């Protein structure tokens, strides 16, 4: 038995077993855990690697684990069973299959071990190509994998053309700017339609059938257009064969050809409908498509904007169908007259298709469509074709060679971005940073903690960024980079991130202050004492040595006395010199300690405190995202910048507008909550924050690992509490709330006493307005005890949005229940609203 085939059967059987288990789990039987899910994904990945080359007669891309439903799974399993049977496989692989599989596996292991081989193994080439696509298009690895699958599948015809085609599709359809993974996948699928058209056996069979029936050559325009139209029936099941379409067909392909095409319309496959739907969405969002259609329609006399928009909607809707047909016809219909007829047929088809789906079309729009040439629209994918990189073409050739056995094509003339990217980001520079600058382990641990506590999406973004950096390193140093990549990227990230640098400054400031406060005085005392004591001592020692060791100037006993006197003089001289030196040193120390160092320290503190250090512009790799990464400082991990709100200020109410302004400028303070406002410096205990950012509150052990006496921040001005936002924002409406209301519950009671409180009951959303205060219970024993308050910023029939201070996020939203009350979150209860205007 063919070993590769045996291997494939084994994998498919394994896949089926896993899918059966998953199905049972859906039925409420058996278990399905994380390991099972991982195995399933792995095996699917392996199977996908060979499905193009195998005789499986099944497309594993049919199964998408993210969206598969129970019914879809059942259907897929049926297909899988048939495939296995067709390959003479069984639920229990035969001995022959197992033996052959072992040989195949061994062969693959050896392939993996061939690290120094000039030609990378199948998987290595695939990974490299994925990495390259990740880098070039800024997309996720999963999407790049789909991209590679498509490229590999098309490689048999022309590798360069295949890559060019996909690249041009991406670049022309704003994928690079939108960076929507789904859009990419959709477009890959859309492009697949074109591939299907040329390789699909149904198309070929229709072509053969029509040629036989009409006794015309296959290249004849009648035959090709009939086949295209017939195939269109397969891919667009919803098209009704209307008299208009029939007439168009008869005109082009004759009565017999039209009848055959219509017969094909009636034998429809629903599988590709979803594909077309996805593609329609991409076309509808494409600015390039819009611009192309505008240019085409501009050639007509009809200028009415509404009519143009209607016509545009029709073609965006029908694009996935029309575009591949158009290009296929362009290749096969040489006669310009016949081609124009075919174009008219496409227009008629588009109109019928749009009508079928309820797209409104006025007579003016139909005239506009009929009058317009649509050259730009149909040729938009050819506007900007970029030559693929040398590396990508080479890798794709290797993949094609291994996956299908086809011979690689010779390709001339390349652009190699990879080489220049290597130069931009030299390994030596990065290594130096890693080894010299910072404590990698500490940063690593700190970032891990941060990511585990914070948003998974941020981590995913971080991983993507890592992947893109990885992609820049192709060649022998890639292995080294893998080991260095994680900590290195974090360091780089910290250094370029504005908020990270800000936190670094804060940390330096704190550390330096502590050092000055604790060590300088102690060091000075010890140093002075040492100099004062050690100087004479050293001198005395030198004197003693001089006295006893210095050779006598004379040999006679008579000169002993004078000799002794000389030695005493010399010894005393040493002692005296040392003492004077000590005194001089003392003066020097006094000068340094009390004059020079204070000036230096004061200067440094002045620079840090007044933010005189220039922080570079935000060069974070996550620019545009809500990045909140900072430096690890004790237990707290926050930024020193005022993160803007995620939505623009559209408030018309003065209080809501003022609240927006206040909250926009809030900075992170205690616990990294947004409770420090630069305009209200008297409402923040900076010195206590610098000592204990993770400060205890009310108790000595809350929050966990806290430090500091809770009474130190119990006073109202210790930080910008939630209630301060209400107090300050209400001033914009001329209302001065008492500072005695700084407890949220006290504030709630105030509104009740004033008759301005609306409890959270049915249809309450109709009584709430921007500028009101919302009161929430924080799951205490008393559900009516308000633990938090915020300003209502936006009110709709589906949700309300609030602005908060002293919270982990600056804004929250609450769902409006079907009965019109406001839903809380698990553990949180919306008590009611304090009205701005009674």
């Amino acid at each position, binding site marked *: 038995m063919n070993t590769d085939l045996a291997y494939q059967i084994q994998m498919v059987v394994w896949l089926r077993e896993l899918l059966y288990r998953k199905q049972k789990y859906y039925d409420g039987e058996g278990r399905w855990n994380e390991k099972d899910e991982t195995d399933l994904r792995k095996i699917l990945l392996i199977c996908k690697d060979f499905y193009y080359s195998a005789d499986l007669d099944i497309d594993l891309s049919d199964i998408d684990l993210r969206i598969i439903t129970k019914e879809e799974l059942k259907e897929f399993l049926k297909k899988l069973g048939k495939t296995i049977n067709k390959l003479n496989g069984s639920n229990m692989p035969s001995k022959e299959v197992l033996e052959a599989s072992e040989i195949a596996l061994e062969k693959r292991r050896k392939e993996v071990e061939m690290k120094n081989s000039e030609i990378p193994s199948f998987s290595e080439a695939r990974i490299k190509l994925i990495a390259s696509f990740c880098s070039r298009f800024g997309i996720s690895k999963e999407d790049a994998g789909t991209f590679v699958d498509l490229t590999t599948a098309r490689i048999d015809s022309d590798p360069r053309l295949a890559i060019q085609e996909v690249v041009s599709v991406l670049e022309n359809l704003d994928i690079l700017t939108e960076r929507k993974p789904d859009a990419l996948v959709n477009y890959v699928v859309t492009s697949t339609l074109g591939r299907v058209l040329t390789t699909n056996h149904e198309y070929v069979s229709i072509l053969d059938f029509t040629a036989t029936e009409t006794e015309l050559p296959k290249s004849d325009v009648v035959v090709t257009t009939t086949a295209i139209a017939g195939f269109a029936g397969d891919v667009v099941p919803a098209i009704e064969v209307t008299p208009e379409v029939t007439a168009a067909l008869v005109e082009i392909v004759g009565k017999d050809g039209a009848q055959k095409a219509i017969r094909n319309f009636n034998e429809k496959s629903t599988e590709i409908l979803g594909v077309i739907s996805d593609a329609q969405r991409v076309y509808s969002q494409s600015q390039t498509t819009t611009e192309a259609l505008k240019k085409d329609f501009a050639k007509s006399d009809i200028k009415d904007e509404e009519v143009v928009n209607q016509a545009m909607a029709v073609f965006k809707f029908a694009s996935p169908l029309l575009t591949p047909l158009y290009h296929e016809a362009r290749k096969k219909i040489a006669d310009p007259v016949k081609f124009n007829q075919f174009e008219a047929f496409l227009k008629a088809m588009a109109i019928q298709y749009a009508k079928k789906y309820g797209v409104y079309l006025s007579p003016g729009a139909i005239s506009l469509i009929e009058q317009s040439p649509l050259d730009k629209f149909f040729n938009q994918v050819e506007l900007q074709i970029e030559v693929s990189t040398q590396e990508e073409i080479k890798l794709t050739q290797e993949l094609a060679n291994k996956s299908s056995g086809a011979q690689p094509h010779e390709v001339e003339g390349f652009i190699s971005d990879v080489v220049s990217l290597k130069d931009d980001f030299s390994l030596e520079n990065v290594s130096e940073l890693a080894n010299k600058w910072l404590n990698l382990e500490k940063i690593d641990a700190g970032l891990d903690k941060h990511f585990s506590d914070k948003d998974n999406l941020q981590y995913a973004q971080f991983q993507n960024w890592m992947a893109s950096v990885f992609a820049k390193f192709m060649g022998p140093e890639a292995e080294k980079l893998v080991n260095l990549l994680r900590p290195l990227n974090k360091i780089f990230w910290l250094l370029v991130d504005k908020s990270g640098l800000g936190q670094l400054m804060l940390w330096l400031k704190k550390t330096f202050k502590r050092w000055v406060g604790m060590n300088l005085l102690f060091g000075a005392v010890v140093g002075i004492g040492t100099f004062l004591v050690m100087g004479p001592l050293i001198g005395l020692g030198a004197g003693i040595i001089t006295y006893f060791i210095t050779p006598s100037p004379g040999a006679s006993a008579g000169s002993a006395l004078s000799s002794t006197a000389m030695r005493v003089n010399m010894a005393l001289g040493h002692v005296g010199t040392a003492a004077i030196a000590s005194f001089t040193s003392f003066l020097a120390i006094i000068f340094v300690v009390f004059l020079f160092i204070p000036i230096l320290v004061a200067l440094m503190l002045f620079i840090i405190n007044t933010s005189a250090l220039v922080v570079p512009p935000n060069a974070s790799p996550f620019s545009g995202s809500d990045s909140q990464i900072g430096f690890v400082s004790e237990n707290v991990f926050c930024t020193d910048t005022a993160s803007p709100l995620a939505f623009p200020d559209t408030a018309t109410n003065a209080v809501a507008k003022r609240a927006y302004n206040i909250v926009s400028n809030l900075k992170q303070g205690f616990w990294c909550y947004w409770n420090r406002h630069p305009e209200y410096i008297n409402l923040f205990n900076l010195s206590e924050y610098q000592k204990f950012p993770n400060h205890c509150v009310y108790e000595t052990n809350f929050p966990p690992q806290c430090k500091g006496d809770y009474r130190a921040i119990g006073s109202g001005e210790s930080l910008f509490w939630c209630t301060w936002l209400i107090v300050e924002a209400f001033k914009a409406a001329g209302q001065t709330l008492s500072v005695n209301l700084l407890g949220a519950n006290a504030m709630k009671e105030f509104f009740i006493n004033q008759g301005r409180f609306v409890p959270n009951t049915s249809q309450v959303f109709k009584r709430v307005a921007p500028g009101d205060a919302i009161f929430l219970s*924080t799951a205490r024993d008393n559900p009516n005890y308000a633990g938090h308050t915020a300003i209502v910023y936006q009110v709709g029939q589906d949700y309300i949005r609030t602005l908060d201070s002293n919270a982990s996020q600056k804004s*929250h939203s609450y769902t409006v229940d079907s009965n019109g009350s406001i839903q809380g979150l698990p553990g949180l209860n919306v008590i009611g609203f304090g009205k701005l205007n009674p």
Partner: protein
Amino acid sequence: MKKRALFIILIIASVLSVVFLYYSSRAGRTPQSVIPDIVKDQTTYEQPKDDLIFSNTIEKAYKEQPFLQKLPIETPNYIIVYDYNKKLIRVRLLSKEKILIKEEIKNKLKEIGVDLLTIKVEYLE
């Protein structure tokens, strides 16, 4: 002459150090309280704790279902919210092209991490 110059330099240096120290210490100092003592009672000690509990509760919910913090999503064609009582995604459709919009919504939900196998989507048309 030299002694006088040295003396003047020392005086200037001393004055400068005092000025720098004054400004640097001022930047980190909290001004006198504007809050009357009556406020500094038990309630005010509790308020920071209540705020912490509030945020912890919300963060816990977001951690369990990360897509919650990506909601609501509002576009000219639809509004997506999470119904905490029914534990499902609720979508109000505003566009007439419902087939296309539903596809878009489905993709959007997948994009923000909603597991459509386990979380039901309810459409309000």
